[in-house]
C-alpha cells in the first residue's frame, strides 16, 4: 500500500482529485457556480499530462450529459460535475443515462434552484433528480467527497449495478471550503478500481449494439423493472464496496452513519455538511444529559430502508432535518422515512424540519430547538405540525 498524502484543499478539488485517481477517459463539462473548479482542475490535469483523458468543453449542461452518455456508451469511463440549474437542465438526460445503464459519475455542488436566483447550498437540485434512476451519495466533508467519488465508480461499474451515480458536496460549505483531505496513492486506487470492462455491449463497430431504441408497451415495463432491480441489487454492492474501501484505506462508509444512537430517545436524521454541526449539537446536548443521537444519510438512493428501520426503530422520536422542500408536502426524506415505517407497528414519532435553504446557516441552537420540538411531540404523543420551518428571518417574514 502506498502512503496517503495529506492535502489541504477545497471540496471541488477533493472531488476532482477523487475523479482523477479513477482515471476517467472522457470529461465533458460545463462550468456552473459552485462546481466550476472541477472542470477547471480536470482540464489542468489533462493539460499537464497528469491525466490521459479527453476534455469536452460543451455549450450547456444538457450537452454535457449528452456527451457523457455518448462517451460512456462506447465503453469509456466518464465523469462530469454540475450543480443547481445545471442538474435541472440535465434532467432529461439523467433518465437516458440510467435507462441505458451507463455508469457515469457526476460530482454535484448541491445548490438551490431558481427562482429567485441563489447560488448557495441546499439539496433541491439533486432531490429533484430523485426519480431519475441515479444512485445518490451525499458527503459531509471534503474527505467524504473524495472517497465517495472513488467508491461511486466502483459501485456504478459493478456488473450487478451498471447505473450512474451522483456525489453531492454542499455548495460553498464544502465546494469552496479548504479542509484537510487524505488522498490515496494512485496504485492503490488502481487496485481498488479495476479498468472499466463493460460486458453489456458498447458502441463498437465489430459488435454492433443499439442503445435506447423504441420499447413498446410489451417491453417497456420490463426494462424499468430490470433497472429498478439493479438499484435494489446495488444495496449489497454498496456495502461490499464500502467495506473493501475501509479495509484498504481505513475510512469506513455506511449508507447511514450513527453517532450516540444506541440509547437515544430522540435521533436527528441529517444529510450533507449539516451533519458536522449536528454532531456538535449532539455532543453538547449529551453533556446536558439529553438522550439524543445522530443518524447521517450518506446514501439517499437507493433509500436505505432496512438500515433506517434498524437504527431508528427503537427511538421514541426522529427529527428529519432537510435542506429540500417538496412544496405541497414537506421534505423528501421525511416522506420516504414515513413510508419506510408505514407497515411497522412500533415506530418513532417523526417530525420534519425544513431549514438551511439557499445557504441559510444551520446553527447548534437550531438543532437544539429541533430536538426540543421533537421531544415535546414525543411527550405529548402527538404531532400537531408535522412539517416545520426552522431559523426563519423574522425581519422578512414579519
Amino acid at each position, binding site marked *: 500500500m502506498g502512503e496517503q498524502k495529506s492535502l489541504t484543499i477545497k471540496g471541488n478539488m477533493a472531488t476532482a482529485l477523487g475523479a482523477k485517481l479513477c482515471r476517467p477517459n472522457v470529461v465533458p*463539462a*460545463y*462550468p*456552473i*457556480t459552485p462546481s*466550476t473548479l472541477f*472542470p*477547471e482542475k480536470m*482540464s*489542468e490535469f489533462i*493539460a499537464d499530462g497528469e491525466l490521459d483523458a479527453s*476534455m469536452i*468543453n460543451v*455549450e*450547456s449542461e444538457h450537452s454535457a450529459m449528452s456527451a457523457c452518455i455518448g462517451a460512456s456508451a462506447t465503453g469509456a469511463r466518464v465523469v462530469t460535475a454540475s450543480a443547481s*440549474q445545471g442538474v435541472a*437542465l440535465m434532467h432529461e438526460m439523467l433518465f437516458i443515462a440510467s435507462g441505458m445503464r451507463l455508469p457515469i459519475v457526476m460530482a454535484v455542488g448541491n445548490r438551490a434552484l*431558481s*427562482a429567485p*436566483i441563489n447560488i448557495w447550498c441546499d439539496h433541491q437540485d439533486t432531490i429533484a433528480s430523485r426519480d431519475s434512476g441515479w444512485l445518490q451519495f451525499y458527503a459531509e466533508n471534503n474527505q467524504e467527497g473524495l472517497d465517495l467519488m472513488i467508491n461511486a465508480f466502483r459501485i456504478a461499474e459493478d456488473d450487478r449495478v451498471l447505473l450512474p451515480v451522483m456525489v453531492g458536496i454542499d455548495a460553498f460549505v464544502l465546494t469552496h471550503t479548504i479542509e484537510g483531505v487524505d488522498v490515496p496513492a494512485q496504485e492503490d486506487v488502481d487496485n481498488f478500481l479495476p479498468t472499466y470492462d463493460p460486458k453489456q455491449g458498447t458502441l463498437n463497430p465489430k459488435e454492433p449494439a443499439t442503445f435506447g431504441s423504441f420499447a413498446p408497451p410489451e417491453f417497456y415495463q420490463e426494462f424499468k423493472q430490470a433497472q429498478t432491480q439493479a438499484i435494489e441489487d446495488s444495496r449489497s454492492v454498496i456495502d461490499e464496496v464500502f467495506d473493501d474501501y475501509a479495509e484498504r484505506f481505513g475510512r469506513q462508509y455506511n449508507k447511514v452513519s450513527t453517532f450516540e444512537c444506541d440509547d437515544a430517545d430522540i435521533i436527528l436524521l441529517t444529510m450533507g455538511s449539516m451533519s458536522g454541526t449536528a454532531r456538535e449539537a449532539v455532543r453538547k446536548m449529551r453533556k446536558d444529559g439529553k438522550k439524543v443521537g445522530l443518524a447521517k444519510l450518506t446514501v439517499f438512493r437507493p433509500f436505505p430502508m432496512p438500515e433506517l428501520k434498524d437504527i431508528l426503530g427503537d427511538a421514541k422520536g426522529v427529527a428529519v432535518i432537510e435542506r429540500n422542500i417538496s412544496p405541497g408536502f414537506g421534505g423528501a426524506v421525511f416522506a420516504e422515512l414515513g413510508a419506510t415505517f408505514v407497515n411497522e407497528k412500533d415506530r418513532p414519532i417523526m417530525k420534519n424540519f425544513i431549514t438551511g435553504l439557499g445557504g441559510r446557516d444551520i446553527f447548534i441552537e437550531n438543532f437544539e430547538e429541533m430536538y426540543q420540538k421533537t421531544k415535546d411531540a414525543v411527550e405529548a404523543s402527538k404531532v400537531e405540525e408535522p412539517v416545520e420551518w426552522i431559523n426563519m428571518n423574522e425581519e422578512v417574514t414579519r
Partner: protein
Amino acid sequence: MAEQMEGDVIGGKKIQEKYLRDEMMPHIFCNGCGLGNVLDYVLWAVEKEGFDMDKTVFLSGIGCSSRIPGYIDADALHTTHGRALGFATGVKMANPELNVIVFTGDGDCIGIGGNHFIHAARRNLNITVIAVNNYIYGMTGGQVAPTTPEGHFGTTAPYGNIESPFDMSKMAIAAGATYVARWPVYRPNQPINSIREGLRNNGFSFIEMMSPCTTAYGRRNKFREIKDLWDFYIDNTILKEEYEMTMKFGSEEEKEAAKDKIIIGELHKISKKPLEDRYRDLVKELME
C-alpha cells in the same frame, strides 16, 4: 446636438438618478469591465427615444451582463441561463405594446442559449437584444466560450482554444435579424445611435457590444491593463465602410490585413414585418 453626448445631465437631472436603483449600488462589475458603459449607453438611448419606463421590460439570462436589469428602475425578468429570449417571446406575444429589451452575454446568447437566439431572430420578434461580448465565460471565472478566439486562453483551455469561435452578429444576420450593429464599448456615440436605431426598428434588433472582461479574460491573455484590451479592440476592428472601401480600392496587402479584422458598425438593416404584427394580421384576416 441631440446626437451628441451632453455630459451625464439631462434636463437638470442626472441620468443615473432617473433610471438606476440606488439601493442596488455598489454594482458588482469589476474595474475595467465594460458593462457599466453598456448600461449607460442603453439608458441614454432609452432617454433619447423617450421610452416610457412603465411600458418597458428588461430581461436577462445568467451571467455578468444579465445582472444589468437589476440596476434599472423598471420591470425586469431575470431568468435562467440562455433562456431570456424564450421568456421575451412570451412577454412580447402576450403584450405587444411593451418595449422589450434583453441584456445577454456571449455565453448566455450564443452558447447555452444559441437555439433560442436563432429562433427569436428567425421569427423577427420585435425586441432589442443588447449582447455584451467579452469573449469568455466571465462570471464563472474565465472558461473558454463559443466566442473565444482561437489560440486565446481560458481556464478550460490552458494551452489555448482550439475551437473556431462564433461571430454573433453574422449569426444574427444569417438567422433573420432585421437590424444588426456591432461596436466596441470605447466608442460612446455610435453605440447609442445604434441602440436607438434598434429600439426604433420594428423587428429583431441585435446590438453586439465588444466589452472587456479584465478579470477573467484580460488577465489570462496578456492584456495586463485595462487599456490593453481597448487597444486590442482598436487594432483589430475595422469600420464596415472602411472595410468595403479597402476591399474595392485597397492594395492586396491592405486587403489581407482587413480580412483578419472584426468588422464594426451598422452591419445590417432591412425592413420586414415582425412576428407579432404578422400574427395580429392573420388573426384579423381570419376573423373578417
